Protein backbone atom coordinates (compact mmCIF):
# COMPACT_ATOMS: atom_id res chain seq x y z
CA UNK A 1 0.00 0.00 0.00
CA UNK A 2 1.25 3.45 -0.91
CA UNK A 3 2.72 5.18 2.13
CA UNK A 4 1.33 8.64 2.54
CA UNK A 5 1.68 10.56 5.79
CA UNK A 6 -1.53 10.14 7.78
CA UNK A 7 -3.33 13.41 8.31
CA UNK A 8 -3.64 14.64 11.87
CA UNK A 9 -7.32 15.01 12.54
CA UNK A 10 -9.34 14.23 15.65
CA UNK A 11 -12.33 13.21 13.57
CA UNK A 12 -12.62 9.95 11.70
CA UNK A 13 -15.62 11.20 9.76
CA UNK A 14 -16.49 14.83 9.03
CA UNK A 15 -19.52 15.70 6.98
CA UNK A 16 -20.20 19.36 6.22
CA UNK A 17 -23.39 20.61 4.60
CA UNK A 18 -23.91 17.51 2.47
CA UNK A 19 -26.95 17.59 0.25
CA UNK A 20 -27.83 14.97 -2.29
CA UNK A 21 -30.56 14.92 -4.91
CA UNK A 22 -31.73 12.31 -7.42
CA UNK A 23 -33.44 13.76 -10.45
CA UNK A 24 -34.09 16.99 -8.61
CA UNK A 25 -35.56 15.18 -5.58
CA UNK A 26 -33.56 15.90 -2.42
CA UNK A 27 -32.80 12.81 -0.36
CA UNK A 28 -30.24 14.40 1.98
CA UNK A 29 -30.62 17.92 3.37
CA UNK A 30 -27.60 19.79 4.68
CA UNK A 31 -26.17 16.85 6.60
CA UNK A 32 -23.50 17.63 9.22
CA UNK A 33 -21.71 14.92 11.19
CA UNK A 34 -18.50 14.90 13.19
CA UNK A 35 -17.53 11.49 14.47
CA UNK A 36 -14.36 11.35 16.59
CA UNK A 37 -11.83 8.57 16.13
CA UNK A 38 -12.55 5.41 18.08
CA UNK A 39 -16.33 5.82 18.18
CA UNK A 40 -18.91 3.19 17.34
CA UNK A 41 -21.56 5.29 15.70
CA UNK A 42 -25.08 3.98 15.14
CA UNK A 43 -26.90 5.67 12.29
CA UNK A 44 -30.63 5.19 12.73
CA UNK A 45 -33.60 5.97 10.53
CA UNK A 46 -36.64 4.44 8.92
CA UNK A 47 -36.54 2.82 5.47
CA UNK A 48 -35.87 5.42 2.78
CA UNK A 49 -34.56 7.99 5.28
CA UNK A 50 -31.30 8.28 3.31
CA UNK A 51 -28.99 6.06 5.40
CA UNK A 52 -27.68 4.00 2.49
CA UNK A 53 -27.26 7.13 0.37
CA UNK A 54 -25.19 8.58 3.21
CA UNK A 55 -23.02 5.49 3.53
CA UNK A 56 -22.56 5.43 -0.27
CA UNK A 57 -21.29 9.01 -0.16
CA UNK A 58 -19.00 8.29 2.79
CA UNK A 59 -17.51 5.27 1.02
CA UNK A 60 -16.84 7.28 -2.21
CA UNK A 61 -19.41 5.31 -4.21
CA UNK A 62 -21.64 8.31 -4.75
CA UNK A 63 -20.79 11.96 -5.34
CA UNK A 64 -22.80 14.29 -3.19
CA UNK A 65 -24.62 17.17 -4.89
CA UNK A 66 -23.17 19.69 -2.43
CA UNK A 67 -21.02 19.80 0.69
CA UNK A 68 -17.79 18.11 1.76
CA UNK A 69 -16.94 14.80 3.35
CA UNK A 70 -13.61 13.94 4.94
CA UNK A 71 -12.73 10.45 6.09
CA UNK A 72 -9.59 10.13 8.24
CA UNK A 73 -8.79 13.66 7.11
CA UNK A 74 -9.08 12.93 3.37
CA UNK A 75 -11.66 14.48 1.08
CA UNK A 76 -13.89 11.84 -0.54
CA UNK A 77 -14.01 13.68 -3.86
CA UNK A 78 -10.49 15.06 -4.15
CA UNK A 79 -8.65 12.20 -2.44
CA UNK A 80 -10.93 9.24 -3.03
CA UNK A 81 -8.03 6.76 -3.43
CA UNK A 82 -6.63 7.77 -0.03
CA UNK A 83 -10.06 7.38 1.47
CA UNK A 84 -10.56 3.93 -0.06
CA UNK A 85 -7.26 2.71 1.37
CA UNK A 86 -8.42 3.69 4.83
CA UNK A 87 -11.94 2.36 4.88
CA UNK A 88 -13.50 -1.06 5.13
CA UNK A 89 -17.04 -1.57 3.90
CA UNK A 90 -19.66 -4.25 4.27
CA UNK A 91 -22.79 -3.49 2.21
CA UNK A 92 -26.15 -4.98 3.05
CA UNK A 93 -27.00 -8.43 1.65
CA UNK A 94 -23.62 -9.37 0.25
CA UNK A 95 -23.43 -13.11 -0.38
CA UNK A 96 -20.01 -13.23 -2.13
CA UNK A 97 -19.04 -15.84 -4.71
CA UNK A 98 -20.73 -19.13 -3.86
CA UNK A 99 -18.56 -21.32 -6.06
CA UNK A 100 -15.32 -20.02 -4.58
CA UNK A 101 -13.82 -20.91 -1.22
CA UNK A 102 -13.60 -18.48 1.69
CA UNK A 103 -9.89 -18.12 0.97
CA UNK A 104 -10.45 -17.38 -2.73
CA UNK A 105 -13.08 -14.78 -1.94
CA UNK A 106 -10.89 -13.08 0.65
CA UNK A 107 -7.78 -13.26 -1.52
CA UNK A 108 -9.63 -11.48 -4.33
CA UNK A 109 -10.59 -8.55 -2.13
CA UNK A 110 -7.21 -8.54 -0.41
CA UNK A 111 -5.39 -8.16 -3.72
CA UNK A 112 -7.78 -5.44 -4.84
CA UNK A 113 -6.97 -3.64 -1.60
CA UNK A 114 -3.25 -3.78 -2.44
CA UNK A 115 -2.27 -6.26 0.28
CA UNK A 116 1.08 -7.88 -0.50
CA UNK A 117 1.30 -10.87 1.86
CA UNK A 118 -2.19 -12.14 1.16
CA UNK A 119 -1.96 -15.60 2.75
CA UNK A 120 -0.51 -14.33 6.02
CA UNK A 121 -3.07 -11.54 6.23
CA UNK A 122 -6.00 -13.88 5.60
CA UNK A 123 -4.77 -16.28 8.26
CA UNK A 124 -4.30 -13.44 10.74
CA UNK A 125 -7.77 -12.05 10.06
CA UNK A 126 -9.54 -15.41 10.25
CA UNK A 127 -7.75 -16.14 13.52
CA UNK A 128 -8.87 -12.78 14.90
CA UNK A 129 -12.45 -13.69 13.97
CA UNK A 130 -12.11 -17.25 15.39
CA UNK A 131 -12.90 -18.58 11.94
CA UNK A 132 -9.80 -20.57 10.97
CA UNK A 133 -11.40 -23.88 10.06
CA UNK A 134 -13.40 -22.69 7.07
CA UNK A 135 -10.67 -21.30 4.88
CA UNK A 136 -10.95 -23.90 2.12
CA UNK A 137 -14.70 -24.43 2.20
CA UNK A 138 -16.91 -23.12 -0.58
CA UNK A 139 -19.22 -20.31 0.43
CA UNK A 140 -22.28 -22.15 -0.83
CA UNK A 141 -22.00 -24.31 2.29
CA UNK A 142 -22.03 -21.27 4.61
CA UNK A 143 -24.89 -19.99 6.77
CA UNK A 144 -25.89 -16.33 6.73
CA UNK A 145 -23.93 -15.72 9.91
CA UNK A 146 -20.80 -17.34 8.49
CA UNK A 147 -21.07 -15.27 5.32
CA UNK A 148 -21.39 -12.13 7.41
CA UNK A 149 -18.20 -13.06 9.19
CA UNK A 150 -16.46 -13.45 5.82
CA UNK A 151 -17.90 -10.04 4.98
CA UNK A 152 -16.32 -8.54 8.08
CA UNK A 153 -13.06 -10.34 7.26
CA UNK A 154 -12.88 -8.80 3.77
CA UNK A 155 -13.66 -5.39 5.24
CA UNK A 156 -10.83 -5.48 7.81
CA UNK A 157 -8.16 -7.37 5.84
CA UNK A 158 -6.30 -4.18 4.98
CA UNK A 159 -6.49 -2.75 8.52
CA UNK A 160 -8.77 0.19 7.75
CA UNK A 161 -9.10 2.99 10.27
CA UNK A 162 -12.82 3.42 9.60
CA UNK A 163 -15.26 0.56 9.09
CA UNK A 164 -18.67 1.07 7.46
CA UNK A 165 -21.37 -1.51 8.07
CA UNK A 166 -24.73 -1.29 6.33
CA UNK A 167 -27.42 -3.17 8.28
CA UNK A 168 -24.89 -5.79 9.43
CA UNK A 169 -27.41 -7.72 11.53
CA UNK A 170 -29.96 -8.06 8.73
CA UNK A 171 -31.12 -11.68 8.47
CA UNK A 172 -28.98 -12.97 11.34
CA UNK A 173 -30.28 -15.24 14.08
CA UNK A 174 -29.77 -14.21 17.75
CA UNK A 175 -26.50 -16.15 17.99
CA UNK A 176 -25.23 -14.54 14.78
CA UNK A 177 -26.16 -11.10 16.12
CA UNK A 178 -24.31 -11.75 19.35
CA UNK A 179 -21.20 -12.96 17.50
CA UNK A 180 -21.25 -9.91 15.27
CA UNK A 181 -21.63 -7.60 18.26
CA UNK A 182 -18.62 -9.22 19.93
CA UNK A 183 -16.57 -8.76 16.76
CA UNK A 184 -17.52 -5.09 16.44
CA UNK A 185 -16.62 -4.42 20.07
CA UNK A 186 -13.28 -6.24 19.71
CA UNK A 187 -12.41 -4.37 16.51
CA UNK A 188 -13.05 -1.11 18.28
CA UNK A 189 -11.28 -2.06 21.49
CA UNK A 190 -8.31 -4.03 20.17
CA UNK A 191 -7.68 -2.29 16.85
CA UNK A 192 -8.99 1.17 17.62
CA UNK A 193 -11.26 1.09 14.58
CA UNK A 194 -13.94 3.74 14.19
CA UNK A 195 -17.16 2.03 13.21
CA UNK A 196 -20.07 3.60 11.38
CA UNK A 197 -23.10 1.36 11.39
CA UNK A 198 -26.45 1.76 9.64
CA UNK A 199 -28.99 -0.25 11.52
CA UNK A 200 -32.60 -0.84 12.40
CA UNK A 201 -31.94 -3.00 15.40
CA UNK A 202 -32.20 -0.58 18.30
CA UNK A 203 -31.44 -3.17 20.94
CA UNK A 204 -28.06 -3.76 19.28
CA UNK A 205 -27.36 -0.04 19.05
CA UNK A 206 -27.86 0.21 22.80
CA UNK A 207 -25.42 -2.65 23.43
CA UNK A 208 -22.78 -1.66 20.90
CA UNK A 209 -22.70 2.03 19.99
CA UNK A 210 -20.99 4.85 21.83
CA UNK A 211 -22.92 7.53 19.92
CA UNK A 212 -25.94 7.72 17.68
CA UNK A 213 -27.44 9.87 14.95
CA UNK A 214 -31.03 9.78 13.76
CA UNK A 215 -31.89 10.53 10.16
CA UNK A 216 -35.45 11.29 9.17
CA UNK A 217 -36.48 12.14 5.62
CA UNK A 218 -32.92 13.08 4.73
CA UNK A 219 -32.38 15.35 7.74
CA UNK A 220 -30.26 14.62 10.77
CA UNK A 221 -32.70 15.22 13.60
CA UNK A 222 -30.55 14.03 16.47
CA UNK A 223 -26.94 13.24 17.29
CA UNK A 224 -25.27 12.65 20.63
CA UNK A 225 -23.38 10.11 22.72
CA UNK A 226 -25.28 7.08 23.91
CA UNK A 227 -24.74 8.02 27.53
CA UNK A 228 -26.19 11.52 27.15
CA UNK A 229 -29.05 10.18 25.04
CA UNK A 230 -30.11 7.75 27.75
CA UNK A 231 -29.78 10.48 30.41
CA UNK A 232 -31.79 12.93 28.33
CA UNK A 233 -34.81 10.62 28.20
CA UNK A 234 -34.85 9.11 31.70
CA UNK A 235 -38.54 8.27 31.46
CA UNK A 236 -38.03 6.00 28.43
CA UNK A 237 -37.20 2.40 29.29
CA UNK A 238 -35.54 1.59 25.99
CA UNK A 239 -33.80 3.16 23.05
CA UNK A 240 -36.78 2.14 20.95
CA UNK A 241 -39.02 4.46 22.97
CA UNK A 242 -36.55 7.30 22.55
CA UNK A 243 -36.35 6.71 18.82
CA UNK A 244 -40.13 6.63 18.41
CA UNK A 245 -40.42 9.91 20.32
CA UNK A 246 -37.83 11.57 18.08
CA UNK A 247 -39.44 10.35 14.87
CA UNK A 248 -42.93 11.30 16.05
CA UNK A 249 -41.77 14.77 17.05
CA UNK A 250 -40.12 15.22 13.63
CA UNK A 251 -43.19 14.02 11.73
CA UNK A 252 -45.49 16.33 13.63
Amino acid at each position, binding site marked *: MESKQPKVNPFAIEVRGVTHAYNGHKVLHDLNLSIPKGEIFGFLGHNGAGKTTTISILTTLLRQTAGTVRIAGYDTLEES*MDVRKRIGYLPENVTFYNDLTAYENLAYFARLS*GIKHVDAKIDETLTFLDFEGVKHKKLKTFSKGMRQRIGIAQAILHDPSVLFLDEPTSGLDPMGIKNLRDIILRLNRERGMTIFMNTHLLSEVGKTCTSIGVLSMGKLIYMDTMERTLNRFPDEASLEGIYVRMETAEMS
Partner: protein
Amino acid sequence: MILSETSPLRTIIGHELRALVREGTFSALLGIFLAVTLFSVFIGWSTRSTTLAIYATTVATLNGAGVSHVAPNPLLGVSTLAIFNNLIIYMLLVGALLAIVIGHRSFVRDRRSGVIQLLLSRPAGRPFYIAGKLCGTGIALLSVLLGMFAVSSASTLFIPSLHLSGGEFLSLSAFYGVSFIYLSFFTALGLLFGVYMPNESMSLLLPIIAWIAIVFILPELSTGQNPVALLNPVTLAHAPQALGTFFSSARAILSPFSFGQDYVALALHFLRINSETFNIGALFKLAAAGLAADAACVFALWKYSAAADQIL
Protein backbone atom coordinates in the same frame (compact mmCIF):
# COMPACT_ATOMS: atom_id res chain seq x y z
CA MET B 1 3.30 -2.55 -14.31
CA ILE B 2 -0.29 -2.94 -15.41
CA LEU B 3 -0.03 -6.75 -15.40
CA SER B 4 2.39 -7.22 -12.49
CA GLU B 5 1.54 -9.90 -9.95
CA THR B 6 -0.15 -7.44 -7.62
CA SER B 7 -1.93 -5.33 -10.26
CA PRO B 8 -5.71 -4.99 -9.89
CA LEU B 9 -6.19 -5.76 -13.59
CA ARG B 10 -4.42 -9.09 -13.29
CA THR B 11 -6.34 -9.84 -10.09
CA ILE B 12 -9.71 -9.20 -11.75
CA ILE B 13 -8.79 -11.18 -14.88
CA GLY B 14 -7.60 -14.11 -12.75
CA HIS B 15 -10.78 -13.97 -10.72
CA GLU B 16 -12.95 -13.94 -13.88
CA LEU B 17 -11.29 -17.09 -15.17
CA ARG B 18 -11.40 -18.89 -11.83
CA ALA B 19 -15.05 -18.05 -11.21
CA LEU B 20 -16.04 -19.03 -14.75
CA VAL B 21 -14.34 -22.41 -14.61
CA ARG B 22 -16.11 -23.20 -11.33
CA GLU B 23 -19.52 -22.67 -12.90
CA GLY B 24 -21.38 -25.70 -14.21
CA THR B 25 -22.95 -24.03 -17.27
CA PHE B 26 -19.62 -22.87 -18.66
CA SER B 27 -17.84 -26.13 -17.94
CA ALA B 28 -20.63 -28.13 -19.59
CA LEU B 29 -20.62 -25.93 -22.72
CA LEU B 30 -16.84 -26.02 -22.88
CA GLY B 31 -16.87 -29.82 -22.65
CA ILE B 32 -19.45 -30.01 -25.44
CA PHE B 33 -17.46 -27.58 -27.56
CA LEU B 34 -14.20 -29.50 -27.23
CA ALA B 35 -16.01 -32.77 -27.91
CA VAL B 36 -17.64 -31.44 -31.09
CA THR B 37 -14.25 -30.14 -32.22
CA LEU B 38 -12.87 -33.64 -31.99
CA PHE B 39 -16.01 -35.05 -33.54
CA SER B 40 -15.93 -32.63 -36.47
CA VAL B 41 -12.33 -33.57 -37.25
CA PHE B 42 -13.34 -37.22 -37.18
CA ILE B 43 -16.31 -36.56 -39.49
CA GLY B 44 -14.12 -34.55 -41.88
CA TRP B 45 -11.43 -37.21 -41.93
CA SER B 46 -13.99 -40.00 -42.34
CA THR B 47 -15.66 -38.22 -45.27
CA ARG B 48 -12.32 -37.64 -46.94
CA SER B 49 -11.14 -41.23 -46.41
CA THR B 50 -14.44 -42.64 -47.68
CA THR B 51 -14.28 -40.48 -50.80
CA LEU B 52 -10.68 -41.49 -51.44
CA ALA B 53 -11.51 -45.18 -50.89
CA ILE B 54 -14.48 -44.99 -53.27
CA TYR B 55 -12.30 -43.23 -55.83
CA ALA B 56 -9.58 -45.87 -55.50
CA THR B 57 -12.13 -48.70 -55.85
CA THR B 58 -13.72 -47.02 -58.87
CA VAL B 59 -10.34 -46.49 -60.52
CA ALA B 60 -9.44 -50.16 -59.90
CA THR B 61 -12.78 -51.32 -61.32
CA LEU B 62 -12.43 -49.09 -64.37
CA ASN B 63 -8.83 -50.17 -64.91
CA GLY B 64 -9.98 -53.79 -64.62
CA ALA B 65 -12.60 -53.10 -67.27
CA GLY B 66 -9.88 -51.78 -69.57
CA VAL B 67 -10.57 -48.07 -69.11
CA SER B 68 -7.23 -46.32 -68.96
CA HIS B 69 -8.27 -42.66 -68.91
CA VAL B 70 -9.92 -42.05 -65.56
CA ALA B 71 -10.94 -38.65 -64.21
CA PRO B 72 -8.39 -37.26 -61.68
CA ASN B 73 -8.88 -37.63 -57.95
CA PRO B 74 -11.49 -34.98 -57.01
CA LEU B 75 -9.82 -34.37 -53.65
CA LEU B 76 -6.46 -33.48 -55.15
CA GLY B 77 -7.48 -29.86 -55.45
CA VAL B 78 -9.12 -29.77 -52.04
CA SER B 79 -7.11 -28.55 -49.06
CA THR B 80 -6.55 -30.89 -46.14
CA LEU B 81 -8.04 -28.11 -44.00
CA ALA B 82 -11.43 -28.95 -45.50
CA ILE B 83 -11.75 -31.66 -42.85
CA PHE B 84 -12.40 -28.80 -40.39
CA ASN B 85 -15.39 -27.66 -42.45
CA ASN B 86 -17.92 -28.63 -39.77
CA LEU B 87 -16.20 -26.40 -37.22
CA ILE B 88 -17.67 -23.39 -39.00
CA ILE B 89 -21.22 -24.39 -38.18
CA TYR B 90 -20.25 -25.36 -34.61
CA MET B 91 -18.67 -21.93 -34.13
CA LEU B 92 -21.80 -20.27 -35.47
CA LEU B 93 -24.05 -22.24 -33.13
CA VAL B 94 -22.42 -23.64 -29.98
CA GLY B 95 -19.53 -21.16 -30.06
CA ALA B 96 -21.78 -18.11 -30.10
CA LEU B 97 -23.84 -19.54 -27.23
CA LEU B 98 -20.72 -20.21 -25.19
CA ALA B 99 -19.51 -16.67 -25.90
CA ILE B 100 -22.83 -15.25 -24.71
CA VAL B 101 -22.62 -17.31 -21.51
CA ILE B 102 -19.07 -16.07 -20.82
CA GLY B 103 -20.11 -12.42 -21.14
CA HIS B 104 -23.41 -12.82 -19.37
CA ARG B 105 -22.06 -14.70 -16.37
CA SER B 106 -19.25 -12.19 -15.93
CA PHE B 107 -21.55 -9.42 -14.72
CA VAL B 108 -24.53 -11.39 -13.44
CA ARG B 109 -22.21 -13.28 -11.08
CA ASP B 110 -21.14 -10.02 -9.45
CA ARG B 111 -24.65 -8.65 -9.25
CA ARG B 112 -26.06 -11.86 -7.79
CA SER B 113 -23.40 -11.99 -5.11
CA GLY B 114 -23.93 -8.31 -4.28
CA VAL B 115 -20.25 -7.42 -4.49
CA ILE B 116 -20.31 -4.62 -7.08
CA GLN B 117 -20.37 -1.80 -4.54
CA LEU B 118 -17.74 -3.59 -2.53
CA LEU B 119 -15.45 -3.92 -5.55
CA LEU B 120 -15.94 -0.28 -6.47
CA SER B 121 -15.08 0.81 -2.94
CA ARG B 122 -11.62 -0.76 -3.26
CA PRO B 123 -8.67 1.43 -4.31
CA ALA B 124 -8.65 -0.17 -7.79
CA GLY B 125 -11.99 1.46 -8.53
CA ARG B 126 -14.17 1.61 -11.60
CA PRO B 127 -11.64 1.83 -14.49
CA PHE B 128 -9.87 -1.36 -13.41
CA TYR B 129 -13.17 -3.10 -12.78
CA ILE B 130 -14.40 -2.37 -16.31
CA ALA B 131 -11.05 -3.13 -17.96
CA GLY B 132 -10.83 -6.34 -15.93
CA LYS B 133 -14.27 -7.45 -17.09
CA LEU B 134 -13.51 -6.88 -20.77
CA CYS B 135 -10.02 -8.41 -20.64
CA GLY B 136 -11.21 -11.29 -18.44
CA THR B 137 -14.05 -12.29 -20.77
CA GLY B 138 -11.76 -11.84 -23.78
CA ILE B 139 -9.08 -14.07 -22.27
CA ALA B 140 -11.71 -16.65 -21.30
CA LEU B 141 -12.92 -16.79 -24.89
CA LEU B 142 -9.36 -16.90 -26.20
CA SER B 143 -8.58 -19.80 -23.86
CA VAL B 144 -11.54 -21.76 -25.21
CA LEU B 145 -10.40 -21.18 -28.79
CA LEU B 146 -6.80 -22.07 -27.92
CA GLY B 147 -8.14 -25.29 -26.42
CA MET B 148 -10.01 -26.01 -29.64
CA PHE B 149 -6.96 -25.14 -31.70
CA ALA B 150 -4.89 -27.54 -29.61
CA VAL B 151 -7.50 -30.30 -29.95
CA SER B 152 -7.87 -29.85 -33.71
CA SER B 153 -4.10 -29.60 -34.29
CA ALA B 154 -3.31 -32.56 -32.05
CA SER B 155 -5.99 -34.69 -33.68
CA THR B 156 -4.27 -34.36 -37.05
CA LEU B 157 -1.16 -35.95 -35.53
CA PHE B 158 -3.10 -39.14 -34.77
CA ILE B 159 -4.88 -39.42 -38.10
CA PRO B 160 -3.03 -41.54 -40.66
CA SER B 161 -2.06 -39.83 -43.92
CA LEU B 162 -3.12 -36.44 -42.67
CA HIS B 163 -0.35 -33.89 -42.31
CA LEU B 164 -0.74 -30.14 -42.20
CA SER B 165 1.97 -28.02 -43.79
CA GLY B 166 3.28 -24.86 -42.11
CA GLY B 167 1.08 -22.75 -44.35
CA GLU B 168 -1.97 -24.83 -43.47
CA PHE B 169 -1.24 -24.40 -39.75
CA LEU B 170 -1.12 -20.66 -40.35
CA SER B 171 -4.44 -20.81 -42.18
CA LEU B 172 -5.96 -22.83 -39.34
CA SER B 173 -4.67 -20.21 -36.87
CA ALA B 174 -6.23 -17.47 -39.01
CA PHE B 175 -9.53 -19.38 -38.92
CA TYR B 176 -9.43 -19.40 -35.11
CA GLY B 177 -8.40 -15.75 -35.17
CA VAL B 178 -11.43 -14.74 -37.21
CA SER B 179 -13.59 -16.99 -35.01
CA PHE B 180 -12.32 -15.04 -31.99
CA ILE B 181 -13.28 -11.76 -33.62
CA TYR B 182 -16.73 -13.09 -34.49
CA LEU B 183 -17.37 -14.60 -31.04
CA SER B 184 -16.09 -11.48 -29.22
CA PHE B 185 -19.18 -9.71 -30.48
CA PHE B 186 -21.39 -12.26 -28.72
CA THR B 187 -19.35 -12.13 -25.51
CA ALA B 188 -19.87 -8.37 -25.43
CA LEU B 189 -23.56 -8.86 -26.22
CA GLY B 190 -23.95 -11.23 -23.25
CA LEU B 191 -22.16 -8.78 -20.97
CA LEU B 192 -24.20 -5.84 -22.26
CA PHE B 193 -27.56 -7.49 -21.64
CA GLY B 194 -26.32 -8.76 -18.28
CA VAL B 195 -25.68 -5.16 -17.25
CA TYR B 196 -28.85 -3.64 -18.65
CA MET B 197 -31.43 -6.26 -17.70
CA PRO B 198 -32.00 -6.69 -13.96
CA ASN B 199 -33.96 -9.90 -14.61
CA GLU B 200 -31.42 -12.69 -14.94
CA SER B 201 -33.47 -14.95 -17.23
CA MET B 202 -34.37 -12.10 -19.57
CA SER B 203 -30.79 -10.91 -19.65
CA LEU B 204 -29.76 -14.30 -21.04
CA LEU B 205 -32.79 -14.75 -23.28
CA LEU B 206 -32.39 -11.43 -25.12
CA PRO B 207 -28.82 -11.97 -26.38
CA ILE B 208 -29.91 -15.45 -27.46
CA ILE B 209 -32.74 -13.86 -29.46
CA ALA B 210 -30.20 -11.44 -30.96
CA TRP B 211 -28.00 -14.42 -31.80
CA ILE B 212 -30.92 -16.20 -33.50
CA ALA B 213 -31.59 -13.05 -35.52
CA ILE B 214 -27.96 -12.64 -36.54
CA VAL B 215 -27.25 -16.28 -37.31
CA PHE B 216 -30.60 -17.45 -38.74
CA ILE B 217 -33.06 -14.68 -39.60
CA LEU B 218 -30.81 -12.01 -41.12
CA PRO B 219 -28.96 -14.42 -43.44
CA GLU B 220 -32.30 -15.92 -44.53
CA LEU B 221 -33.69 -12.50 -45.41
CA SER B 222 -30.55 -11.03 -46.85
CA THR B 223 -29.76 -14.09 -48.98
CA GLY B 224 -33.35 -14.62 -50.02
CA GLN B 225 -32.38 -12.98 -53.26
CA ASN B 226 -29.79 -15.69 -53.70
CA PRO B 227 -31.56 -18.72 -52.17
CA VAL B 228 -28.83 -21.34 -52.56
CA ALA B 229 -26.04 -19.19 -51.09
CA LEU B 230 -26.34 -20.47 -47.52
CA LEU B 231 -26.39 -24.13 -48.45
CA ASN B 232 -23.72 -24.00 -51.08
CA PRO B 233 -21.79 -20.73 -51.07
CA VAL B 234 -21.46 -19.45 -54.59
CA THR B 235 -20.91 -15.97 -55.89
CA LEU B 236 -23.94 -13.88 -56.65
CA ALA B 237 -23.00 -13.78 -60.31
CA HIS B 238 -23.46 -17.55 -60.61
CA ALA B 239 -26.47 -17.94 -58.32
CA PRO B 240 -30.05 -18.04 -59.48
CA GLN B 241 -31.83 -14.84 -58.43
CA ALA B 242 -35.17 -14.66 -56.67
CA LEU B 243 -37.97 -12.81 -58.40
CA GLY B 244 -39.47 -9.59 -57.03
CA THR B 245 -38.03 -6.67 -55.12
CA PHE B 246 -38.64 -7.77 -51.52
CA PHE B 247 -35.50 -9.84 -51.15
CA SER B 248 -33.29 -7.41 -53.02
CA SER B 249 -34.49 -4.61 -50.72
CA ALA B 250 -34.10 -6.82 -47.64
CA ARG B 251 -30.60 -7.69 -48.76
CA ALA B 252 -29.65 -4.06 -49.22
CA ILE B 253 -30.90 -3.16 -45.75
CA LEU B 254 -30.01 -6.23 -43.70
CA SER B 255 -26.84 -7.68 -45.18
CA PRO B 256 -24.58 -5.17 -43.36
CA PHE B 257 -25.84 -6.71 -40.08
CA SER B 258 -25.59 -10.29 -41.21
CA PHE B 259 -22.39 -11.02 -39.29
CA GLY B 260 -22.97 -14.76 -39.43
CA GLN B 261 -22.78 -14.67 -43.20
CA ASP B 262 -19.62 -12.59 -43.11
CA TYR B 263 -18.05 -15.03 -40.68
CA VAL B 264 -18.91 -18.03 -42.87
CA ALA B 265 -17.38 -16.33 -45.91
CA LEU B 266 -14.16 -15.56 -44.02
CA ALA B 267 -13.99 -19.01 -42.41
CA LEU B 268 -14.42 -20.72 -45.79
CA HIS B 269 -11.55 -18.63 -47.10
CA PHE B 270 -9.18 -19.35 -44.21
CA LEU B 271 -9.95 -23.07 -44.31
CA ARG B 272 -9.15 -22.89 -48.05
CA ILE B 273 -12.55 -24.31 -48.96
CA ASN B 274 -13.93 -21.42 -50.96
CA SER B 275 -12.11 -18.16 -51.50
CA GLU B 276 -14.63 -16.73 -53.93
CA THR B 277 -16.72 -15.36 -51.08
CA PHE B 278 -13.74 -13.69 -49.36
CA ASN B 279 -14.09 -10.01 -48.74
CA ILE B 280 -11.60 -8.09 -46.57
CA GLY B 281 -14.39 -5.62 -45.78
CA ALA B 282 -16.22 -8.41 -43.94
CA LEU B 283 -13.24 -8.83 -41.61
CA PHE B 284 -13.25 -5.13 -40.75
CA LYS B 285 -17.01 -5.26 -40.31
CA LEU B 286 -16.75 -8.13 -37.81
CA ALA B 287 -13.97 -6.34 -35.94
CA ALA B 288 -15.94 -3.08 -35.95
CA ALA B 289 -19.05 -4.87 -34.63
CA GLY B 290 -17.01 -6.43 -31.81
CA LEU B 291 -15.37 -3.12 -30.92
CA ALA B 292 -18.71 -1.30 -31.02
CA ALA B 293 -20.22 -3.91 -28.70
CA ASP B 294 -17.20 -3.59 -26.37
CA ALA B 295 -17.59 0.20 -26.35
CA ALA B 296 -21.27 -0.23 -25.50
CA CYS B 297 -20.21 -2.52 -22.62
CA VAL B 298 -17.77 0.09 -21.29
CA PHE B 299 -20.50 2.70 -21.42
CA ALA B 300 -23.07 0.41 -19.76
CA LEU B 301 -20.68 -0.69 -17.00
CA TRP B 302 -19.59 2.88 -16.35
CA LYS B 303 -23.16 4.09 -16.23
CA TYR B 304 -24.28 1.19 -14.06
CA SER B 305 -21.50 1.64 -11.55
CA ALA B 306 -22.15 5.36 -11.37
CA ALA B 307 -25.94 5.07 -11.28
CA ALA B 308 -27.58 6.42 -8.19
CA ASP B 309 -30.55 4.09 -8.51
CA GLN B 310 -28.62 0.91 -7.87
CA ILE B 311 -26.95 2.42 -4.82
CA LEU B 312 -30.23 3.49 -3.25
